Structure formats: structure tokens, C-alpha cells
């Protein structure tokens, strides 16, 4: 599904922040991406999500060499990836329902074709009562669940989550982890970037550890 071969990245003329990364993310797999703050977790997620291009090495995503793809092809690939941002990135002028339905809307699908699906997912993440609320009036936990719902609504093959439990208490963190595990069981590969050891200890999964710009894989 994802293959990195000797990937390196530097910003401008600075030192390499990521060095010789070589790893694979297999279909239906579950992994934590961890490491100390500033180790490059978010940078690696941005490479996975195609908003950064490596300065060297090869990235293959769903069988495509990403360096050869056009902008439209990259957009098409992104639709197969769901991403949960650390800062949620919900659109404040749209309701929770509309935020979650946004991936369908950009595909040009009529509202009637996805309405039930969105409502069902909102109920599943326990936001059924809040679907017509605007993000500024949602609590941190509600925003987090709305962001996760938006990331998974289009059934992505790969889910990337950047510190998805960084803004919630341990109880909610546990519930969110259970949500990711459920998604993984339904066929989505999951990568969770976190430095929350307690969270990782709750689920036995592969760990990708970034340290000094290098990646160590613990299966």
C-alpha cells in the first residue's frame, strides 16, 4: 500500500530532518508512529499525505510513484486517504453534519445520496445530537470526533491521525482508540502519530519510532 525507499527530506538548504527512511505500510495493518517532540512525526505524516515532496528517495502510494503524478492524480490519491489533524481543521461556518459530509460534497455527490450514511456515522461517534451545531460551540472532544468522522466517512484505505488523543481525557482517548481499531478491522490501514505511551500500551500494534530523523520499526 505504501512503500518508502531511502527517503530523505530537508527544508531548503538546512540539514536533513528525515534520513534514509525505508518501510512499508501493508493493507489492513495498524501502527503507531511515535518519537520525541520534534522528531519529525508530523513531517512524515505530511510525506504520507502528499503535502510534502521528499528531497530524495522513492515514495510509492497505492502502486504509484508519487513523484510522477499530476496534481489532479494526487487529489484522486488523497481521496483514498483519511487524515485527522491535530488541530481538527473543521470549517467554522458549516455544521458538524456538513463538515463530515464535505469529502462527499467535493466529489460532487448529491446530498440525498450520502445523508443516511453521514447521520449513521455521526450517531456512531455519538454526535447525533450535535450534527446541526457549528464547530465553535462544540467541545474539544466533540470536535475531535467530528474530525475523525470526516476522515473516515468516505471509507479511506489508509487513515492517518496526528495526535488524535492530544486534546482529550484518558477515557475519551480509550474510546477513540477503540474507534480506530474498529475501522482497522473493517479493512482500513491505520497510522496513529502519538507520543502517548499509555495509549500505545492499550493496543498491541506495530511501532514506527522516529529518532534523530531516522526510523526504527518494531513489529
Amino acid at each position, binding site marked *: 500500500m505504501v512503500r518508502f525507499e531511502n527517503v530523505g527530506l530537508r527544508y531548503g538548504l538546512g540539514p536533513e530532518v528525515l534520513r534514509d527512511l525505508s518501510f512499508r505500510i501493508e493493507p489492513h495493518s495498524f501502527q503507531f508512529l511515535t518519537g520525541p517532540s520534534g522528531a519529525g512525526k508530523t513531517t512524515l505524516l505530511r510525506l504520507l*499525505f502528499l*503535502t510534502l*515532496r521528499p528531497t530524495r528517495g522513492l515514495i510509492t502510494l497505492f502502486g504509484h510513484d508519487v513523484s510522477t503524478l499530476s*496534481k*489532479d492524480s*494526487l*487529489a*484522486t490519491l*488523497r*481521496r483514498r*486517504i483519511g*487524515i485527522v*489533524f491535530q488541530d481538527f*481543521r473543521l*470549517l467554522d*461556518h*458549516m*455544521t458538524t453534519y*456538513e463538515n463530515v459530509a*464535505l*469529502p462527499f*460534497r*467535493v*466529489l460532487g455527490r448529491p*446530498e440525498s445520496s450520502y445523508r443516511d450514511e453521514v447521520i449513521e456515522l455521526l450517531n456512531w461517534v*455519538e*454526535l447525533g*445530537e*450535535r*450534527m*446541526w*451545531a*457549528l464547530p465553535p*460551540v*462544540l*467541545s*474539544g*472532544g*466533540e470536535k475531535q*470526533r467530528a474530525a475523525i468522522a*470526516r476522515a473516515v466517512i468516505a471509507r479511506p484505505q489508509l487513515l492517518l491521525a496526528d495526535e488524535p488523543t492530544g*486534546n*482529550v*481525557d484518558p*477515557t*475519551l482517548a480509550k*474510546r477513540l482508540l477503540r474507534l480506530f481499531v474498529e475501522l482497522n478491522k473493517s479493512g482500513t490501514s491505520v497510522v496513529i502519530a502519538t507520543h502517548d505511551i499509555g495509549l500505545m500500551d492499550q493496543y498491541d500494534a506495530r511501532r514506527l519510532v522516529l529518532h534523530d530523523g531516522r526510523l526504527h520499526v518494531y513489529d
Partner: protein
Amino acid sequence: MSDPHTDRTVSPPSRDPPRGETPIVPKDSIAGRSLIVVVAIMTFLASLTTGAVLLVRAAAGEWQADVAREVTVQVRPASGRDLEADVNAAVAIIRATNGVAGVHAYSKAEAARLLEPWLGTGLVLDDLPMPRLVVVRIAAGARPDLAKLRQALATAVPAASLDDHRGWIDRMRAMAGTVAAGGIILLIMMLVATVLSVTFATRGAMATNRPIIEVLHLIGARNGFIASRFQRHFLMLGLQGGAIGGGAAALVFLVAHAMSAWWTGTAAEDQIGALFGQFSLGLGGYTALVGLVLLIAAVTAFTSRHTVNRTLDAVE
């Protein structure tokens, strides 16, 4: 933070289901309203400039046409000739010429009145060798053969000379050309200022939309989809601002036209009439204002699309 069940108890209640889909680009924003105001003001000023230039240009053309529509024949007294008979002969020849709309031979009394400002009243001109003037009005759009007329007058009335005001017309033409060129330069400067102001105001308004562009991009929207949404939204903002500014300018011209009708016969009307002619833009003028509004709206839309593309390039 707390359990989602707890969250629900402390959060404000949800609002009712919306009736329609919320536009992806927020409809009402401070930046959007500010842009409408900037577009409206700049369109108003540009429309006033356009209208004023069109009026002055038309008036300059009218001054020129007025002079060109008249020629003068001067019949001088000559020894051994009957001045009255020469005048009548000249009038007959002129009347027989194609393209002449009217002929008026000034009588002795009328000639005396013409000289009054310089020589005073109570003049006895019988003993003076006063030339007589014959004013010839040329029909609108007609181009009489003045060379032939001059030849015919020289043959039949040797003391007559024809003045077609060529020198005046050349000067009027030069002046009208200068006025029109000055107006067009002014208009171009105004249009450039308008386009630049609208461009920068649009970029400012777009800056607040950067998070939306990024989110759309990251959930897999194609660049064309994002750009078209913003372009459509900003085209509407541009049209709204343009319609307000252009409409206000059109109203100013309509009111000015109506007021010029009330002033008819006053000194102020004479002065304004000399400068601006009828003070009416006409269909062409109002069409130009509509064109201006569309141009400014198009600039707004294009700038938003350009800004979206630049933002997407930066995000990638």
C-alpha cells in the same frame, strides 16, 4: 475535556437543521463586505470618470460640428456695382447649391447691430462702404461642393468671398482631440487604479479563506473545484459591489440630466451645456458603465482564482 456524554451537557444546544446546503465559501464575512464596499467605491469613481470623459468628448465633437455646419459669404461694395443686387445674386447662387439648409443675408440694420459693441449705437452707415454678410447653414450630414460654390460666386459676383472657417475648424479639431485624449488618459489611469485596488482588496479578503482552501485540498478536492467555488463567490461579490457603484453613478448622471432640463435658459445651463453638451450619457454611455461593472467583477473573480492557485501551490 470530559466524556462525550458530559460534553453534551455543558455545550450550548444544537441549532435547527439548516434549510439548504451552506456554501463552501462563507457568504457573509467582514472581509467580503469590505470588498463589496471597496469595489462599489472604485466602480462609482471609475463610472463617473467614464461618463464625464464620454460627455466632454461628445461635447467637443459637437463644438466642431457646429462650426463646420456654417459658412459665411462676404459681399464687399465695389465701384460701379450695385451692392444689393450683388447680395441677391449671391443668395440665389447659394440657394441653388446642393446641401444648403438655409441662407440668411444680413440687412444693413443687422450689420449695424453687429458693430454696436465696437462702434456704439446711432451709427449712420449709409456713407460707409460696409460689406454685407450672408450666413449659409449646411444641412446635417451634407457635404456641399464649396470649391464649386466659390468659383460660381467669383464669376457672378466678383466682390464676394467665401469663408468656410477652415482655420477655426482646424483649431477646434485640435482642441477637441486634446480634450478627448486627456480624458482617455485620465480614464485609463482611473481604470488601472480601480483594477489594482480591487485586486489587493480581493487578495485581502482571500487571506481569511486560506484554511478553507487547505482543508478542501487535503480532503481530496481538485484544484479546479476549489478555484471555481471561490471564483463564483468573488464574481458575485464583484457584481454586487459593481452594481452598487455603477448604479449610483448612473443615478448621478440621470439626476444631472433631469436637473439640466430644469435650468434651461439660465446662465448656468449655458455654461454646463457648452462644456458637456446635452449632459446625457445616452445608450452608449450607460452600456459603457455596464461594461465597466462587468470588467471589475471579472477582475475580482480572476484575482480570487489566481490567489487560490497560488495558495494551493504553497500548500503543496
